[in-house]
């Protein structure tokens, strides 16, 4: 396990790369998803106020 984490002495470079990749990919997925849900909620609220639902 320790050996795996050390990556032959390149652990810092390898894990920073994978960590940053995970962070960027997750943010780029979660933020648009939350925005979609927010937009659906807001539009639904507006339609209800207008009495068309």
């Amino acid at each position, binding site marked *: 396990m320790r050996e795996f984490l050390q*990556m*032959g*002495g*390149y652990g810092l*470079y*390898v894990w*920073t*790369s*994978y960590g*940053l*990749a995970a962070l*960027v*990919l997750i*943010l*780029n*997925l979660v933020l*648009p*998803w939350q*925005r*979609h849900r927010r*937009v*659906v909620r807001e*539009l*639904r609220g*507006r*339609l209800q106020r207008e009495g*068309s*639902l």
Partner: protein
Amino acid sequence: MLDFLHRMASPPHFYRLAGRLLPWLSAITALLFLSGLWGALFTSPPDYQQGESVRIIYVHVPAAWMSLFAYVVMAVAGAIGLVWRIRLADAVAAASAPVGAGFTFLALVTGSLWGKPMWGTWWVWDARLTSELLLLFLYLGYIGLRAAIEDRRNAARASAILALVGVVNIPIIHFSVEWWNTLHQGATVFRSGGPAIDPSMLLPLLLMALAFNFYYFVVLLLRVRTELLLEERRTNWVREVLS
């Protein structure tokens, strides 16, 4: 055929189709990432020159490939929106930019993290690195331009032109390692004479590349759906979808 395309590009149809596709695409993306990561971190061997640092390549190369792919989608969709005034095309172009910028950022940073131990430097101003940095600025300029122009149509038009001008940078990035003497190595996979890489490394690389590709389409569809809802909020189909 044209009729079919028009129906496909109609916002309500696309919105529903994308909604049905998204769960499947997400599942495939997750599976590809799991198998790709397994190969990249466990089953693939260390490189005889680079040692374990070669594992950075399984993130770096797919991110770099997709940074170009997302830009081409953005430029082509922008052009279609410009010429035929198809709203869906414009929504696709806008949705492609943030993901593409993310890929470009990752390609640059992971390249740097690989370059420090392998080349002995975080950064050199060689043709490949410089043109990829320019790509990041093109993405950021595109996003900034869209945000700066209030009127939706003008924003779409101006940003599509910017994307089309910047498209000359794409072949420059790809061929930079042949046209100039770069510190960055030449092509290993897409080269004449076939890939110069062992299958034990090529397979996880391709799995990761596919994972990045499917991931891209998941985010793209997600963003396009939101965009369509907002743009068409006064129409009947949005009312139906929300009720």
